[in-house]
């Protein structure tokens, strides 16, 4: 697993950004940037070079699902691994995310082992 790649984490709760950043640090990912909603994330993705996106769903003004659709519609970004970490656990949400091209889906509250497993799976197939 390439832990040197740049990771963008997206969540409107600063505490959750901090928790995910610290868990990623334990997994030896040191190049982590943050965004507080989909729009800010898209702007960072278009100007930066990220190898993994980890995003919440429920954010304004742009949700995680809408961010995912934008990423998959962008020729340069479309292959970027994208993990959704969200409290949205309904089947219809998972199906919508999968249809939009999500790489993996983690439901909150989650544990570090789940995060590690999903990242390894996604980057292994990236």
């Amino acid at each position, binding site marked *: 697993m390439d832990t040197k790649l740049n990771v963008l984490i997206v969540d409107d709760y600063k505490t959750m950004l901090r928790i995910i950043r610290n868990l990623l640090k334990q997994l030896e990912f040191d190049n982590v940037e943050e965004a507080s909603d989909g729009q800010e994330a898209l702007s960072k993705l278009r100007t930066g070079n990220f190898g993994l996106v980890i995003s919440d769903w429920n954010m304004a003004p742009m949700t995680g699902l809408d961010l995912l659709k934008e990423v998959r519609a962008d020729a340069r970004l479309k292959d970027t691994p994208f993990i959704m970490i969200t409290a*949205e656990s309904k089947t219809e*949400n998972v199906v919508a995310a999968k249809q939009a091209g999500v790489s993996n889906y983690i439901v909150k509250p*989650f544990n570090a082992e789940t995060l590690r497993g999903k990242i390894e799976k996604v980057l292994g197939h990236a």
Partner: protein
Amino acid sequence: MPDGNPPDQIEAAVRAVLGTLSGDLTVTEAALLGELEALGREVKRAKSEIAALSVEDINESHIPAATDELDAVVEHTATATNEILDACETLESLQSKLDEGNAQALGHAVTRIYEACSFQDITGQRIAKVVSALKAIESRVAAVTGSFGSLPAAMGKNADATEGEKLANGPQLPTNASSQADIDKLLASFD
């Protein structure tokens, strides 16, 4: 039908009907009159009851106070969570000074604290849903007390909302939520 709110319109209608009744009443007319009088009394009673409830307090005092309290809960739990995270980061910085076994044990303990601290995100989202419900109640109470007029349409998702916004309804209650294992099975079914 005269202008005005529905209770006034009902009273006016009752008076208009009574005005058409003259001379000896038939049994049917007497029954109708009885029904109309009962209706008038019911409207008057409802108006008195609503006035006695001081429902304006709900919008002017109770709901704003409740939402302020809930906002304070979110703020205080966020502050407390960040203090816990500060302490965890300090502990992590000490890991390099410990022998391998103790450093690993400390690392595991800190990870468990990080995992537990994610409660703040979930509770924050749940409280936001409660605040949204209180605001919907506030809006409907205002409509009822303002004019007895038509209630606003039930608050729902904007028709122009994106798919992401329409599906943003979490967190689900534990009894309705899918587990990570359920979600993994669902994802695997696409492969």
